[in-house]
Structure formats: structure tokens, C-alpha cells
């Protein structure tokens, strides 16, 4: 047994913001192992320049954002190609955002509606200035050449 046990000192220190009360910087970071699971075909589709939705074979409801099971009747849905042209259902221009997206401001968010499709799709619209977007405006899907396997591999431009 050591005669004088002692912790090793380090120069790690702590970032201190205030002393009354004591406020310190408390760092936290994590990499998740995230599976797109049943949504995976959608993200593969983006890499192939396809925008996939899903359709319920039982009640014919067609989803502009895919889901593996129908929210109306509970049946398993089938993958369908969505048209690559649609219309702006609603929109906004964000001048602020969550920290992750702050550097990208201002950016335009749109919900896209497609002919013959019952639900919508959330995406970015580029190539327009604030004030140039209108509900009903025709828009066309474009895909990143180098996929990131994120929903942002697809975005829209004026048709």
C-alpha cells in the first residue's frame, strides 16, 4: 500500500463564467448510431435521383412523405415514385434558426404538394429571393450529386 495516496494533478482545468453562483462550461457530445430502418429506401432513392413516397394498397392513400404503415387503415404501404414537380403549399423565410442552421440563414422552407398525392413534403427552396415565393408556385426537385444520405439530398427550385 502506498504511504501517501494522491491523485495525479492535470492541467485540464474548467472554463469558468462566473463565481457567484459558480457557472462553468459543461461539454457534452455524442455520435449516435442511427438507422433509417424502414425509411431507408427513401434515402437510397435520393442518391438515385428518385423522390419516393408511399401508397396504401388498401385505401389508396398516398403519402408525400413516406411511412411504412398507413395511418388511416394500418396496412403496410408500398413505395411509389413521386412526381419531381409540385407546388408550394406554404412557405417561410427563416432569418434565424437552431444553432446548427444559423449560418445558413436566410433560407426558405416550403411544404410541397404533388398532384394525386394526399400529403405533403417539407424541403428547402433555393434560387429565389425573399418575397418572390407564392403559394401555388410550381417547383421542381433537384438532387445533390454527392449524396449525404440526409433528407436535404433533395431540394427544390422554381420550375
Amino acid at each position, binding site marked *: 500500500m502506498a504511504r501517501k495516496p494522491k491523485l495525479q494533478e492535470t492541467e485540464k482545468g474548467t472554463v469558468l463564467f462566473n463565481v457567484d453562483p459558480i457557472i462553468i462550461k459543461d461539454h457534452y457530445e455524442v455520435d449516435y448510431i442511427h438507422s433509417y430502418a424502414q425509411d431507408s429506401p427513401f434515402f437510397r432513392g435520393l442518391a438515385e435521383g428518385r423522390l419516393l413516397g408511399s401508397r396504401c394498397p388498401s385505401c389508396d392513400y398516398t403519402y408525400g412523405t413516406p411511412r411504412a404503415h398507413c395511418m388511416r387503415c394500418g396496412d403496410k404501404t408500398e413505395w411509389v415514385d413521386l412526381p419531381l414537380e409540385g407546388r408550394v403549399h*406554404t412557405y417561410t423565410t*427563416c432569418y434565424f434558426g437552431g444553432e446548427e442552421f444559423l449560418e445558413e440563414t436566410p433560407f426558405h422552407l416550403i411544404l410541397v404538394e404533388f398532384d394525386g398525392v394526399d400529403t405533403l413534403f417539407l424541403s428547402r427552396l433555393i434560387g429565389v429571393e425573399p418575397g418572390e415565393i407564392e403559394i401555388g408556385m410550381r417547383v421542381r426537385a433537384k438532387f445533390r450529386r454527392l449524396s449525404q444520405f440526409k433528407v436535404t439530398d433533395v431540394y427544390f427550385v422554381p420550375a
Partner: protein
Amino acid sequence: MRDVYIVAAGITKFARARPKADFRYMVKEAFDYAMRDVPKLKPEMIDGSVCSYFSDHFTRQLMAGIMAQDYLGLCSKPSKRVEGGGASGGLCLQTAYDAVASGRMEVCVAYGFETMSRVTTWKGNEFIALASDTNFDYPVGGFYTGYYAMMVRRHMYEFGTTVEQMALVSVKNHGNALHNPWAQYPMKLTVDDVRSAPMVADPLTRLDICVMSDGAAVCVLASEDAAREITDKPIKISGVGTGTDTMRLADRPHDEVILLPHENPEDYRGLKYPGVHSFRAGRVAAKMAYEMAGIRDPLRELDFIELYDAYTSSEIQTYEDLGLCRYGEGGKFIQEGYPRMDGDIPVNPSGGLLACGHPIGATGLMQAAFAFWQLQGTIGKHFSGDDTLQVPDARRGLVHSHAGTGTCITVTILERGF
């Protein structure tokens, strides 16, 4: 099911940051305020509790509910956390209601908190946006103000709602708060002030949106027998309703309006519902609570409302969901002055979330506390002697708590007891 009453309530003054008090201390502060109001309620009479806080990210302490329970000295009594985004406080109140109504408890404490100052405002916005689908929504530019902006943009398109009408909500709520000593941001504003504030997500400006807060709130619920022992001013919970909707705005259906008793299908011919312009969960919650409380015409049968106005637009949309006016008439409703203090039905007499702040897990309980004091007629007592905001002879009120993009919504009807 038994009748359930609120017998006491307490809140902390909401602030951008309370660095000298952690969540346990704030809950204790609100709890002690409530206990001081009803000296006949002894700690040993409390059978258990329900806790609400929204975000493990803000708290970064799992099982924080039990830590609050521990700090209040309520261990080893039963307790559990309920979570439903921005509606967590409303769900907490209703879960405590369930505990007493079922006969499992005679006295149940509902407490909630949030400590949003632990990150910067923009990191906080990122956390909140994680309450949107992280596969399909969040990565596109996760930002709740953006989502609400898209919803109200469609509301404007469908119904002709204007940004000036939205600004009137901000003017009203910040103005009411001038007489609420608990409020975080009381302000005398004009429509011009609201419109000339920095644009956050078009058409919502900085003054169309509530802020981040630290705070806690508590309501104590009791059975009739217990309530009679504790207070001579109990307030009865006469209706509870809860609704939900799809997580993704994109998935909202385009069906027919869910009608309240005073509405007709002809009112809404051709209207696709809820789309992204209305909150189906709010309508479902209201319908359920009205049926339970026997309310057929809410505008006439309610004396005031405390509702979720994290955005001026959501207040206008909620007038419609609650059936105070028809769908599409929410803008006109505020323009004509109905929800003002001197109007037919004061909405957010406290100043709402816009002016009081929105420490998420505490918010629904704060709204219930304000409604409880309104119905007791004790606003002056709890507002430093200023009873400007006391709704004269208030007998029945509604509390509305709301999450996500209208993803989970609670409506609770309160009325004078005994």
C-alpha cells in the same frame, strides 16, 4: 370518477435565467408558495405527485422529477414524470386529476419546471426543434418559428388573416402583463412596434414569439373531502380533454372539420381540415372537455381563457379550435376586441406565454395557477395588490396547453367549486 378540485397553486417569477436556483430549488419555491396559501394542508396529507419537464437536453439530468420529489421532502410517496412537449404542464395537471378522480390519491401535487438558460438561445431552439421528425423535418432547417410561420402563412392564404391582426395579440398580451408582477416581459406596444421588430421567420417577428425562460409552477389537487378540509375557495376541474396530431406537418390530413355543437357543416363547405392551418388536436381536446363540462356555446359559457400563445398566430388559430369563432374568423375576432380585458371573453388576461415566458414543463401549470386565482377572485392578493387583471365575477375558465406543431394539446375547464 370523483370530482377533483384545485386547492392551491404557486409559481416562480419566470426569468431568462435563474442561475442562483436550480430546478429543484425553483419547484420548492413554487411549492412553498402554494403551501403557505393553505396552512390547513399539511405535508402528510399529500399522497403523491406528478412532475413535468420537457427536455432531457435542457435538464441534462435524467430522473430529475424524482430529484424534485426528493428536494420537496415527498419521498417515499409515489411520483412520476409526464412529458408531452409544450403541453407537458397541461398533461401534468390532467395526470394529477386522473390520480385523484380514480380514487388512488386524495391529494396530489402537480409540479413542473424548465431550465432553458442552460444553453444559448439558438442552441435552445435546436433542442426544441428536435421535437420534430429527426429523419424528415429537423435536418431541413429545424426551427419551430419556421414551422409556425408556414402554418400561419397558409392560414393567411385560406382566410385572409393579416399580420396586423397577429400583432394585436402581441399588443394585448404584453399590455395585460403590465399588471402581472410574475410576467417576464410586460410591455406597452403598438402594432408598428411588433411589425418593425426583427423578422425571425416571415411573417413572424421577434415580438410575435415568446422567449426562453427558467421557472417552475405547482398546482395542488384534491378530492372533495380533502378540499373541504383544506380551503373554502376550491376550484373544480369540470372538464378535461386531450388531442393529438401527426408529428410531421406534412402528414396533416385534408378532411372535414370536427364540429362543435354550435357549428354546422355548411359553415365549412370546401374547407380542407385541418391542413396545416388549424390544430385538430386542439379541437378534439376542446370538444372532449366541453362535453364533460356541459358547455355548448363556449363564447357565452366561459368567462376567460388562458391559452397557448407561444406565437401570436397560434393564439388566433386557437380561438377557432376552441370554437370562440368560426374557423377563419380568428383574425377578425381579435380585431373586434373580443379577447381583450374589456371584451366578451378575456383571453390570456395574465399576458400569456408571450409576456409571462414559457419554461416549457411549467407553462401549463402556470396557466392553471393564473386561472385558479381568477376563479377564486384572488388575483389582487397574488399580484402584489393589483387587481386590474381580475375578471369580474369569473365563474368558469379554460386552460389550454399545446405542444409541437399542435401535436399534443390539452384543454381543462375550471369552475368555482362547492
